[in-house]
């Protein structure tokens, strides 16, 4: 498709389970971002990839959160031993260029995965 695709759109898990969220960025986009959006809040930065390299993971809230982009396209955000506070919408965004040259480019967002932890 033409846009950023995220799956699943909705995920319900029991506390303690592991979950994996998938992001298909726009083809050819170098930069990929993950955000966490709590209800009524703005997106909070989690991590940034330039191609397959994870250049910034400063926003990951704990070592239960792990992200990868092994071939520089599709990315997966994994949350281990989920907790109720992990309930949020997880947004993925991509932009064409990377590094400093890409920092002035708009991000294209997917529609997010709404994660609910029971």
């Amino acid at each position, binding site marked *: 498709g033409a846009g950023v695709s995220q799956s699943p759109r909705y995920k319900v898990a029991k506390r303690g389970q592991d979950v994996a969220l998938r992001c298909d960025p726009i083809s050819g986009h170098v930069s990929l971002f993950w955000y966490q959006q709590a209800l009524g809040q*703005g997106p909070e930065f989690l991590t*940034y990839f330039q191609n397959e390299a994870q250049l910034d993971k400063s926003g990951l809230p704990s070592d239960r959160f792990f992200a990868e982009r092994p071939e520089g396209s599709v990315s997966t955000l994994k949350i281990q031993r989920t907790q109720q506070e992990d309930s949020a919408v997880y947004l993925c965004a991509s932009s064409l260029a990377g590094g400093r040259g890409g*920092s002035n480019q708009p991000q294209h967002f997917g529609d997010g995965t709404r994660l609910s932890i029971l």
Partner: protein
Amino acid sequence: AQSVAQPEDQVNVAEGNPLTVKCTYSVSGNPYLFWYVQYPNRGLQFLLKYITGDNLVKGSYGFEAEFNKSQTSFHLKKPSALVSDSALYFCAVRGQSGTYKYIFGTGTRLKVLA
């Protein structure tokens, strides 16, 4: 540290009237500033950006924003509001140096009344 403030949780405006959604920022160095719009159950859509140059930036759907360095503000404006403009608006900032991290404001809900 970088930060963005959107002081109004909600802005109400009558259709056809001008609208302003406020944003102030704090960042070391020169900022990259963005406005995004979010409709229910959707991701964010890019409206406009300021990188350098003219302080008045024009973007999608008739929106514009004015960069004011002395007041560290980047307010979103539109001369004539439409009911279809009703949505959640986010201001975002990224510093030119260092981090790849973008900081988003908490959002302002715009309600345009017919």
